[in-house]
C-alpha cells in the first residue's frame, strides 16, 4: 500500500470512466462514466493527503470538492437530459448532434 498503488487504482478508474463517457450512446450512461472519473479523483486526493501532506488539510478539502462536484453533475445532468427529452424526445447523443463541427 503506497502512493503509487493508490494512483494506479485512480488511473485505472479514470480510464474505465473515460471509456464509458466516450463509448456510451445514452446521455445518462455518459454521466456514469463521468462519475467513475470523479471517483478516481476521490481516491487520488485521499492518497495524496495520506502519503504526501498529512499535516495539511488540502487533500481532504479536494475530496469534499469532488464529492460536491459529483452531486452537482448528477443533478444538472438529469435536468438537462429531462429538458432535452421533453423538447425533442431524444435520449441519445447521436440524435442531439446539431453542434457537430
Amino acid at each position: 500500500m503506497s502512493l503509487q498503488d493508490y494512483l494506479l487504482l485512480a488511473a485505472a478508474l479514470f480510464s474505465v470512466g473515460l471509456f464509458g463517457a466516450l463509448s456510451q450512446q445514452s446521455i445518462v450512461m455518459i454521466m456514469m462514466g463521468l462519475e467513475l472519473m470523479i471517483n478516481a479523483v476521490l481516491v487520488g486526493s485521499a492518497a495524496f493527503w495520506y502519503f504526501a501532506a498529512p499535516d495539511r488539510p488540502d487533500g481532504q478539502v479536494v475530496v469534499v470538492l469532488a464529492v460536491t462536484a459529483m452531486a452537482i453533475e448528477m443533478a444538472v445532468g438529469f435536468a438537462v437530459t429531462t429538458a432535452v427529452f421533453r423538447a425533442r424526445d431524444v435520449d441519445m447523443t447521436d440524435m442531439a448532434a446539431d453542434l457537430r463541427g
Partner: protein
Amino acid sequence: MCPVWREIVFWLCAAGAVASGIVVFRVDSMARATFALLASFLFGAGTILLVELTYLGILVVLMMIMEMVIMVVFMVMYMMNPAGLMPMSMLHNQKGSLAIAGGTFAVLAAGVYLVDWPTSRAPRPEQPVYSLGEALMGSKMLVMIVLGLALFATIVATVVLATHRGRYDRYGDRLDRDRPDDPVRGGVGR
C-alpha cells in the same frame, strides 16, 4: 489493523472497484449498471477508509447509496432496453474509445511509476476530520462559500430546466400578456 491485512484489503478493494467499474459498461440493463457503479464507489470508499479518513469514507458511502438509489429511478426512466424487450448495442465508436482509454491508462500508469512523488515524514493528525473542519471554517472557507453558491445555482438551474412551462412561456418574455398563452383553457384566474 496490521500492515499485511491492510495490504490485502487494499488490493481487494482496488480490484473490486475497477472490476465493478468495468461491469457498469458491460451489463445490458441500465439499472444493474447503476448498482455496479454503487459497488465501485463502495470499494473506492473502502480504500479511503484505509488511509484513516473515516469521516470522508463514511460520507462517500452514505452519499453514494442515496445518489445511486435516486439515479436508478432515472435510469429506469431512460432505459434503452427495458425488460430486455429491445435488444440493441448501447455503444458507439467502441474501438476508438477503447484505444483512447487504454492510451490514457498507459500514460497515467507510466507517470505513476516514473515521477518521483514527494513523501512526508510529518506526523499524521490524531483526528483528520478535526483539521478538515478547521480548514473549511478557516483558511479554506472560500472553497466552502463557492461550493455553497454552486449548490444554490444548481438548485435554480435544475428547477428552470425541469419546468415544463414557466411564466415566460405563458405571459411572454416581458411578462406583459394580459391573458396567458396556454394550450388548454381553464385553470386559476381564467
